[in-house]
């Protein structure tokens, strides 16, 4: 086998090895995406969020309910995988209201995202990380329609959420 051929084959093998490592690392740590396709009711006012078809949403669809202080609804995304670490929510470019997220694993915390904020539109908004990354067996993210402090009656949007894991 001549040198050029050996060199070419070596490069292909090296690239395949590098690719395998990248795939394995990605498979272990994510990021993983959960869409709003299957939202689960948690508490508060009943009735599923309305589906909204829009290219401004990840995958072409969002779900929404109107912000309120008197009949607040809570829905959750699917459970995440074990050792969930960093958590993000996608901000559709049609965001107009405040979204209040709660992360629940062994503990829980709440953060607020102004979906109308110019920098939050069309990007992943970092919500925070789990304090129990080494021991959690997954958790879930909820979003509610409580607009206390903001002007109510505008659409609170559910789109995709994203997370990473850290074994």
């Amino acid at each position, binding site marked *: 086998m001549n040198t050029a051929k050996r060199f070419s084959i070596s490069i292909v093998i090296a690239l395949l090895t590098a690719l*395998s490592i990248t795939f394995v690392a990605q498979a272990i740590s994510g990021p993983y995406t959960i869409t709003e396709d299957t939202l689960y009711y948690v508490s508060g006012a009943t009735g599923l969020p309305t589906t909204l078809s829009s290219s401004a949403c990840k995958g072409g669809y969002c779900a929404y309910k109107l912000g309120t202080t008197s009949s607040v609804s809570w829905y959750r995304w699917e459970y995440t995988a074990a050792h969930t670490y960093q958590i993000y929510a996608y901000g559709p470019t049609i965001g107009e209201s405040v979204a209040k997220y709660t992360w629940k694993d062994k503990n829980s915390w709440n953060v607020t995202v102004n979906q109308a904020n*110019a920098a939050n539109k069309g990007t992943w908004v*970092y919500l925070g990380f789990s304090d129990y990354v080494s021991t959690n067996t997954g958790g879930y993210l909820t979003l509610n329609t409580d607009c206390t402090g903001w002007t109510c009656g505008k659409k609170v949007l559910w789109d995709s959420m994203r997370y990473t894991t850290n074994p």
Partner: protein
Amino acid sequence: MKQKDWMASIISGLILGIVIVALQVFGYPSQAKNVQAAGEIEKVLTKTLQSHKKWSSFQGEAQLTQYDADNNPHTDLISIEVEQPLKANVSFKASDDKEKTNNKWVSDGVKIFRVDDKNLSYTESTIPGFAMKLNFIPQSLADVKKDEVYHHPFEMLLSNPIMEYVYPVWFAQARSGSKYQLLGEETVAGRTTSKVELITETDHVIAWIDQETGVILKYFQDSDGQTIVEMEFIWVQFNKKIDSQKFSAPDKTKYRQSENQ
């Protein structure tokens, strides 16, 4: 192919793979967002990213007008007192929406209390560990990620609209393709500010950014010609000692605790 060729190929592949994974973890230089800003405007935007490091305490009063779905204005007068890193007292002094004036947000540095003065109740939530981990906030425009935006955690945890302007680290992280332009210099609430225009795919923003601290003292945003929000601080004061009583938990003999969902 000799055995040493195989070894060399696989080792090279391993090293390359590790380098790619490391770059993914710590961020590709090429992942930097295409923030179209240079010179003076770059300095102003960098100041917003580092704003929380430029002051130790903040006091002020702001008028905030948000527009509802029918484009009707709703104006609030908000009082705010913050002591770094995690103490705050935010309340509505007056509002078009009378219900709002019953609400107050207090943080004693460990817990956040949302106090309802009408029903004499409060909810409390513990401040999570990530509130103190600020290393993920980009420190320069080169650090800004392509498809992610990072807010100051205390802004997100306190859950009051005025916090976005006191902690403006998000301002320089608008979506790729957004344009920033320095429009000049103006005085707001007795402070010298840089007037910056931001144009994104969907919104038009003008922010008056305090030249010393990076805090946004005046703000305007419209989307498709409809005004979304207008905000202006009437007065502000930086780095003055604030009475610690302001950050105390609600009096448990007067207020009852409600369940936090």
